[in-house]
């Protein structure tokens, strides 16, 4: 069923306006778009660096190369609209206006992080800016997006939900279920498929029988278009139109952004599934360079303007790192905070393991459950976070490995006794 190979930069289909370059919006809009893309790019490069320094842990999924898709989309949204994404959403939050300092602090797992260190890179959230999260489960955000849109529909207000997800997510059960529900109920949502040609290490032709994703959505009742995700103006214009359809015509649509990630799927992906040449080819149509070039050639942006922009960006990103570094780690006794809304129903944690700050009343009688002991043990556990450099580290391996290595007890302790 797969159509023509879609893994080359020039084979990109568009929304029809290819070639004919769009007229530029007002200067400061253009500059704003460029600066936001640049900020996200630089932020993520730095995040990668900090990750290598083990300042950030877990997985790190960078969207470097996809900035036009992110910024073009978000620039077409109102503040009151909802945005929801995946585990690759540092840029999405920043584009929505979240302070890079708080995003970096989340990567560092600190008090001032967007989720106070609970969520990490995969689970960024900013209620104030209606960035409804970062989700680690592929496809998990689709039904939630339908629910957000349902709320707007239920209240009869103008808020539109934009749901961003990947090509690989189109194979999850949630995709079919959610497209059908959104179409059946005419929900005001725009499904923005970030087609970066791979689901982890699997190329679109190898994971989806139909690789023209707007066709895939159409069969389920949601019409769509494909647009050049490397062209920030094309993204902005196309998404604006589809948001209008959601807001005014009250029906869901899909926009397939044809884009590319330069980096590996996560921080230490050896990238055996694609060639250096392919990556190079895509870098030639870099969304930031291309747009900056045009702004400069059309006189919207002078060399010194760009210079200053670089400096502003550099400053903000370095400030973000400093800020994150200075932010305290979450206190251990905050472990159970926000697990439940405490009230008439839930008057305590009712947890029974001995690390519970507020143990079940009944526990009181257990010598063992005494407060000091609880805190001593919490500290003892947390101390393992300070472990020395991992043994058996394999730089050519995936993140998972490196983390695994870190978490390993040392050699000797591994000689398991027994029969």
């Amino acid at each position, binding site marked *: 069923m797969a159509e023509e190979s879609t893994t080359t930069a020039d084979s990109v289909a568009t929304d029809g306006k290819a070639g004919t370059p769009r007229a530029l919006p007002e200067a400061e809009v253009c500059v704003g778009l460029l600066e936001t893309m640049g900020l996200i790019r630089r932020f993520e490069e730095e995040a990668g660096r900090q990750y290598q320094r083990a300042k950030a842990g877990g997985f790190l999924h960078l969207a470097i190369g996809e900035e036009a898709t992110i910024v073009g989309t978000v620039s077409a949204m109102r503040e009151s609209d909802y945005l929801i994404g995946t585990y690759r959403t540092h840029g999405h939050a920043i584009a929505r206006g979240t302070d890079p300092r708080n995003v970096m602090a989340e990567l560092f797992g600190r008090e001032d992080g967007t*989720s*106070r260190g609970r*969520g990490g890179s995969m689970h960024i959230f900013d209620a104030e800016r209606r960035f409804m999260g970062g989700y680690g489960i592929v496809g998990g955000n689709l039904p939630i997006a339908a629910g957000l849109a349902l709320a707007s529909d239920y209240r009869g207000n103008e808020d539109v939900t934009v749901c961003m997800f990947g090509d690989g997510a189109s194979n999850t059960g949630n995709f079919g279920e959610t497209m059908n529900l959104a179409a059946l109920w005419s929900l005001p949502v725009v499904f923005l498929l970030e087609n970066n040609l791979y689901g982890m290490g699997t190329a679109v032709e190898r994971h989806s029988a139909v690789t023209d994703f707007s066709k895939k959505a159409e069969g389920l009742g949601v019409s769509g278009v494909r647009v050049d995700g490397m062209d920030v103006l094309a993204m902005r214009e196309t998404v604006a139109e589809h948001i209008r359809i959601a807001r005014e015509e009250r029906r869901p649509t899909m926009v397939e952004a044809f884009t590319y990630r330069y980096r590996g799927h996560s921080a230490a992906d050896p990238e055996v599934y694609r060639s250096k040449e392919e990556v190079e080819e895509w870098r030639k149509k870099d969304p930031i360079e291309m747009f900056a070039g045009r702004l400069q050639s059309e006189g919207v942006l002078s060399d010194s303007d760009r210079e200053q922009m670089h400096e502003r960006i550099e400053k903000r990103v370095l400030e973000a790192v400093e800020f994150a570094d200075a932010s305290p780690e979450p206190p251990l006794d905050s472990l159970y905070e926000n697990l439940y*809304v405490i009230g008439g129903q839930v008057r305590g944690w009712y947890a029974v393991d001995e690390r519970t700050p507020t143990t079940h009343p009944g526990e009181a009688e257990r010598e063992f459950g005494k407060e000091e002991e609880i805190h001593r043990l919490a500290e003892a556990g947390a101390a393992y976070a300070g472990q020395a450099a991992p043994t058996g580290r394999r730089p050519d391996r995936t993140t998972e490995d490196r983390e695994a290595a870190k978490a390993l007890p040392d050699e000797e302790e591994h000689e398991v006794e027994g029969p």
Partner: protein
Amino acid sequence: MREALRDALAEEMRNDESVFVMGEDVAVFQGAFKVTEGLLDEFGERRVRDTPISENTIVGAGVGAAMAGLRPVVELMTVNFSLLAMDQIVNHAAAIPYMFNGQARVPMVVRMPGGGGHQLGPTHSHSFEALYQQVPGLLVACPSTPADAKGLLKAAIRDDNPVIFMEHETLYGMRGEVPEGDDHVVDFGRAAIRRQGSDVTIVGILRMAHEALKAAKALANEHSVSAEVIDPCTLRPLDLDTIVESVRKTNRCVVVEEGWPHGGVGANIATLITEQAFDHLDAPVQRVTGADVPMPYAKRLEQSAIPHPEHVVSAALATLEGTK
């Protein structure tokens, strides 16, 4: 009990515009078990919504709507199908308030009829209280009487936490006193002592709360054993205090559940009791559980796989061995 649940839904929908109901065949069909009968007529299609057969997405849409401030009451036609929605329930509904540090709340209720006794066979007779009791972030209710069903459902709808609301299919037809009106709200985390006793404590949930009571009567009449019967009403939070207090008095306990034995509700409560009242126990806490098999269809086989008063009596007597 059916009417009690329906009244709870209707009352809360009248009180609060943000409350709505969605699920498979809840509207036009009036609900597979008729719990939502009449709601479509009163509240219309906007607030009583038939959904496609898409369990994970129905629950996920509930999560999203709840994050946006509505109070969805999702009906999964039976608990068996909730396995298709486990990802949205565990990885999303339960985790979201915590992982986003309270920036988002999920005031959603997911109703799940379940249990055996109807000869519905291996795919339609599960009891999954034990699955959901494990999950931090969820509240879990398992009412056994019409009054509790109404009061707990109203409390669940008003609560800001995601709630798994278990209903036993064989109790829908049950009759019983139900306090009228709005203020009949039953708090979570408070066990009900259904019968006072001094020799052994019997803890039972859902349909098994009734089997426990029958067993208590048999124990009194045929064995002159005085059993105290406790219905936890909710498993998360669990009112362990009331249970432990009773066991400290009776020194013996039997926990009855319909679900599977390994890692079940009984195993959890027995362990908690033993941890908290070890020195007060004269015998190990006995469990009476469903058989460790997918529920068979044949009527006698099915009944032999479900706990009955005889089993509870037998277990209670086991805790009293030697003493009487």
